């Protein structure tokens, strides 16, 4: 057997691939579901924190900064493991799926809060003053004048960060989430052949290349 044949036998084994591709597709579904939940809840929580922070209540802001710095500093895998293995000790038993969702949503919340906050503070003071001078209240000014401008400038950095964190769904395989990598790993153990990993890589490309391309388009449009 030549080198090339050995390579295809190992990584592109048609028989193994034919047997396990449905598992990988089901993993792709789980990954998409997980990613969508993380993006929606992470960004919503990040925006909510940034808006809350703009009210300038000192004690609240200390709390926000502490939480945000905490989740920016901890490696996502550490958070996943802490939630999955730690919470049962206080009688909360989250599934691997929920642990991964919660962890990555918290990380995305932390990073996106900082990005939204930077966007809000980048809007010149004169915009606030003009709006307030016409009688708009603080919240109205934020909603109609500041946020529409701030969101526009946050879109490029936000897109990048969101993609980076969403790829972390692969970490769910550590706590038995049957997403792409989890499915591929068990298929590898069952078939004694790494070809399912190739399928897994292909599944990630199918999912994330359009997202990355979309991100580049968004970045060009809003920069």
């Amino acid at each position, binding site marked *: 057997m030549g080198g090339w044949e050995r390579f295809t036998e190992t990584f592109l084994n048609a028989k193994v691939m034919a047997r396990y591709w449905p598992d990988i597709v089901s993993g792709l579904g789980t990954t998409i579901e997980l990613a969508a939940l993380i993006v929606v809840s992470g960004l919503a929580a990040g925006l909510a924190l940034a808006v809350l922070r703009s009210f300038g209540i000192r004690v609240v802001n200390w709390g926000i900064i502490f939480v945000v710095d905490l989740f920016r500093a901890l490696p996502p895998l550490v958070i996943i493991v802490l939630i999955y293995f730690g919470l049962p000790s206080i009688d909360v038993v989250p599934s691997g799926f929920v642990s991964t969702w919660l962890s990555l949503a918290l990380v995305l919340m932390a990073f996106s809060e900082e990005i939204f906050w930077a966007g809000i503070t980048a809007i*010149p003071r*004169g*915009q606030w*003053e*003009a*709006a*307030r*001078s*016409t*009688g*708009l*209240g603080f919240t*109205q000014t934020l909603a*109609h*004048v500041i946020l*529409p*401008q701030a969101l*526009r400038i946050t879109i490029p950095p936000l897109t990048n960060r969101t993609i980076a964190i969403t790829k972390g769904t692969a970490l769910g395989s550590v706590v038995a989430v049957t997403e792409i990598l989890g499915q591929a790993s068990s298929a590898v153990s069952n078939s004694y052949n790494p070809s399912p990993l190739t399928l897994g890589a292909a599944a990630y490309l199918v999912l994330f290349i359009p997202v990355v391309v979309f991100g580049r388009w968004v970045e060009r449009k809003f920069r």
Partner: protein
Amino acid sequence: MIQAKGIHKQFGALHVLKGVDLDVAERELVFIIGPSGSGKSTMLRCLNRLEVPTSGSVVVDGIDLLDPRTDLNHARQRIGMVFQSFNLYPHMTALGNVTLALRKVAGKSRAEADEIGHAALARVGLAERADHRPGQLSGGQQQRVAIARAIALEPRVMLFDEPTSALDPELVGSVLGVMRALRESGMTMVVVSHEMGFARAAADRVMFMDDGLIVEQGPPAQIFEAPLHARTRGFISQIQRH
């Protein structure tokens, strides 16, 4: 219309206003001049509480602006303000800029607000520019939209904070033209500016501020041609050289 008494304003150790009194009658146009750092913009910003005075009292159209029970957002609708750097909302059209407060503060429907907004833009000579964004307008046009944004709310008083300082010389005239028309309509106005020609033609009273105090005030002819104080003389001769 405006009664401000004993206004002090301190930013930390910096004492910007050191006891300023300002009374403006209805339909009066008061001009405030003075070197940069004299406190004239801060004084103006105290008149709609964009700055909160450290002490003193500000009453505009019978409303005590420093009373914590005062509905500030309601009061501010009666006090229009125009800024040096226009401060238009860049993500909205000219009409959107003018109608935002009409809809959100004055509670007008979109149709009503649009009608009032178009009328306000027509008053500043920009009826045709309603759908343009600020970025598509010249500085003079932007400042006129900013004036339309303020007058659409039918204020009782208009405050102008160096409205022409950021404009190219050839665009100043159009803004001053709108201000003159506003003056002729009987609007009470307080203007911080160095447009001496406009002051001479339109102001009832000119105040000279220096170092946080009003040094002297009087009719434009007196302040510009026969100032009593040496500091006023020095300042007037300096700006006339330009």
